[in-house]
Each structure stands twice: as C-alpha cells, then as structure tokens.
C-alpha cells in the first residue's frame, strides 16, 4: 500500500510557543498514506489532531512546523507557500471536522455551502446545482432537492456530517483528513456515516486519514493504525492485528476498555512508563 503512497511525512515536528514554555507537541512523526484508510489513535493531548492540521499547514500562529520531508503526490508540502497551499486545501486534501454544528455556516443554505467548494471552476449556476445534488446523493441523502434548501440548524447531526462530507468531496480531493468525524454522533448514525466514508474510499480511490480516540472503532474500520503517545508514533500495525499489538501503551489501552460480553470485576489501569516518552 505504501508503494502508492500519496502522502509521505518524514520526521514531522510541531512546537508551540506559550507564555510559560515551549511545547513540543509532535516529536518526529513519520508515516505514509496510500489509497487506504489509515487510523491515527491517541488520547487527548497525544498530538494526533496537530499532525492532521500540520499537513494542511493549519497550525496556529504560535506553532512552528518542521519536517525532513512532507510530500503529497507531486507537491512539497514542507516548502509550499501560503498561496500554493490555497490550491491544495479543499481541492487536493480535504478535512472533515468533528462537529458539523460548528463547522457549517449557520446562515447559509446547505446546498449553497457545498457549492462554494466548487467556486472558480467556471460552472454555470445550473451545472453547479447539479453537481451539488449529485454530491448529496453520493452521501445517501434521500431527498437532495429538499436538503439543498435547508439551513444547518434544520438538519440532524448525522445529516450535518453527511453534508460536510459532501462539501469536502465536491472538489474531488485525493486525500481526506477526518478529525474525529463521528465522535459527536450517536452510535447508529455513526455507522451510517462510516459506511458512506468507506464506500467513497473504495469507489473513488481516496486516501483517508482517520483521527480518533476510539481504538475499537479504528480497529474495525481502518486498514492500518498508527498509535500516538505524547507526540510520537509508538506503534504501527494492521488494524485487524491490533489485538496482537506489542507496545505496552497499546496493550494497556486495549486492556482498559470495557467490553460487552467480557465482564471483568476490574478494568486494568494504564501504568504509564516514562520510557514510552522516548521509545
């Protein structure tokens, strides 16, 4: 899979200046993403979202990003200027955020918002509308014409997330970075949204970087998993083989999960080893 690597990240570091100290949030992360589903799992503060943002150069102003190499297809992301990034963001690499309620413009109809992603392509109004309706169908919205004219507050969380996926896919990017795309959704709705992502990845040959704190979900959904701890990737494995993970942090996380159908009097509590910070 990595022989057709779309995204290559080599020795990525992100540092944040705060009034108190310099925070080294991402410390030498290297990975590739091909036309596959790659999960990045970690607890809060592990740096997983920071990695996603650094790829699109959306790191806040107090942060500095450095990497030995950071390439996407033919584009050198590490060296790309802000102007060059405008042609990458949304068009080649899209990002799906956690909560559609915060990421959608509340005073703009859903269809027009999706249409904005198609600006600058010389499409007529009618063509643009057709494309948007097609996108809404692609995310399995049954009544696209009706949903087109709704405002974000009129759609449910799951529908909002479908709208966001439609918006992100409208410009036909090659890589999708999804940062906790289903964490704000109910479990049954989550499955529907994942099924849509799954289908789009396989039919359109997209690469998907799936950032999540949910180990179980990533193991069942993705092809490969990267486990982050304190700004580093401590382990990488095939998702199906996560149960055989070697790193004590991964094993500890798995053991601390309550599971249906496997009742234990006590859950194992993760004992953090300072050595993991360097391993």
């Amino acid at each position, binding site marked *: 899979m990595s022989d057709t690597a779309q995204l290559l990240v080599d020795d990525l570091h992100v540092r944040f200046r705060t009034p108190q100290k310099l925070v080294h949030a991402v410390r030498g992360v290297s990975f590739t993403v091909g036309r596959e589903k790659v999960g990045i799992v970690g*607890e*809060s503060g592990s740096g997983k979202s920071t990695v996603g943002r650094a790829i699109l150069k959306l790191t806040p102003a107090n942060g500095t990003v450095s990497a030995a190499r950071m390439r996407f297809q033919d584009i050198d992301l590490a060296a790309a200027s802000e102007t060059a990034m405008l042609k990458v963001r949304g068009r080649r690499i899209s990002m799906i955020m956690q909560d559609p309620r915060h990421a959608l413009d509340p005073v703009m109809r859903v269809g027009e918002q999706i249409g904005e992603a198609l600006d600058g392509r010389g499409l007529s109004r009618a063509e643009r509308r057709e494309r948007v309706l097609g996108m809404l169908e692609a995310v*399995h*919205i*049954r009544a696209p014409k009706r*949903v087109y004219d*709704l405002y974000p507050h*009129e*759609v*449910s*969380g*799951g*529908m909002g997330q*479908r709208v966001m996926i439609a918006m992100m896919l409208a410009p036909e990017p090659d890589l999708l970075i999804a940062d906790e795309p289903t964490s704000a959704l*109910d*479990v*049954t*709705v*989550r*499955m*529907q949204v*994942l*099924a*849509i992502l*799954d*289908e789009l990845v396989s039919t359109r040959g997209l690469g998907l970087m799936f950032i999540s*704190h949910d*180990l*179980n*979900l990533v*193991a*069942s*959904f993705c092809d490969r998993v990267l486990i982050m701890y304190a700004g580093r990737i401590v382990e990488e494995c095939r998702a199906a083989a996560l149960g055989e993970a070697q790193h004590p942090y991964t094993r*500890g*996380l798995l053991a*601390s*999960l*309550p*599971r*249906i*159908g*496997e*009742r*234990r*009097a*006590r*859950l*194992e*509590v*993760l004992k953090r080893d300072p050595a993991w910070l360097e391993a």
Partner: protein
Amino acid sequence: MIAVQELRVRFGQGAGSVQAVDGVSFDVAEGETFGLVGESGCGKSTILRALCGLNPAWTGAVAIAGAPLARPPGRAFFRRVQMVFQDPYASLHPRHTVNTTLMEPLAIHGMDDRDRRVAEVLLQVGLGPAFRYRYPHQLSGGQRQRLAIARALILEPRVLLLDEPTSALDVSVQAEILNLLSDIRAARGLTCLLVSHDLAVIAHLCDRLAVMQHGRIVEQLDVGMLAGGRTNTAYGTSLLQASLGYDRRLARAGIEEGPI
C-alpha cells in the same frame, strides 16, 4: 430502592411541546446497579434530572428508598440520594477549593466531624491529602471526576445517580473511574442508576438495563442477555451491533438516512 411508575416529562406547551419522557416504569432493587442506555434525545438524562429534583415538571409516581419523591425534594432526600454529572469541568465551582467543595454539603446538612469526613472521602476516591487545598483548575479531568464523586459520597447517600460519569474522559482515565465506582459501590452497598450512551460502560457496571428510544423504554434486559447478544427488539439489536464496532455489511445495510 427506586420505583418509577409511568413517569412523563413534557417540555414546552401547546403545539411546540416535546414529550421527552413518555410513560417510563422501572424498579431498581437495593444494592443493584441499573443502566439507562439510548441515543441523544431519548430522554435518559431527563429521567435522571426528574429523579433528583432538578426538573419538577414531571408526572407519574416515583419512590426512592420507600418515600415518594416530593417537589422540591427537601434536605432529607439529598442525604439519601446524590448525583454525579457528566462534565467535571462544568459541575465544580471554579473558585472553590477541594476542601470548600466538600465542606459545603456537610455544613448544609449540619454534619459533625467535618474535618475527618473530608480527609476520609478524599482517601476513598484516591485523592490524597495533598489535593485538599487545590482548585479545580489544578486538577486533571479524572481528578475532577474523583472530586465530584467525593462530593456525592460525603453525605453517605444510599443511592447514586450517575449521568455519563466517564464520557468526558480518555479511556485510560475512564478505566480508573469505573474501577473507583465499582469499589465504592461494593464498600458502601450503594444502589446506582447509571445513564450512558456507551453500551460497553453499561455492560461493565450494571446488573440490568433499559434501552430507551423516543422517551420510552423499548426493552429491559439483564447484562447476561446483553453479553450473549440476546436482545429482544430491533432497536436494541441495532444499538448493540453498532456498539460492537464497524461492520461493513451491517453498516451498508443501514446506510439510509434517519429522520432529518
């Protein structure tokens, strides 16, 4: 210990009103842990808020520890029933130290030996004496939730109402809090009512559970049945399957949108 009969809660009036809880009945025996599980908006938290007096607009019959629930519940009620909330960042007073937070309920209820009680409850929830004069912002999420549990326990209640007590926490911290809750429950013989959207948490902590949808209980089952996949309703089954992880075949089948 807890008996709920035909509980109904309606928000708003007239055409725009919502029947959030629509005739819910269940019983929780002494020492038992009962779970309410369901997706957002199913009414599970609304039930909990009605039971602890935070929402007086309910109808039906509720009895806790043999006494019917009054409106407002009164001081004696809170000696018996305490609540732990979801978000330990919102449920603690930011300008009260751990000590002040724990002393306040003791003062309200005129309990003696306050110093000793505070020290003991801190030890019991795994916060040492070093934490006693800290403020909430000096505590991690897990430590805050321990404090929230300590605040509930300090009045030595017999019933604990838990509203998503671990959903704001990382999994490793969640494991610590779930262990703490099982230990305390065993040590004090508490009766617990646990609300969660996470079936795995419910399966871990509860003896029996009720699956809720649209303000109603669609089925009640014991944890053994849940573990064996023996759910009795289509909704219960889909909730269980969705909680077990992603399954391409099942997910594809359920891809069609729900109500907007």
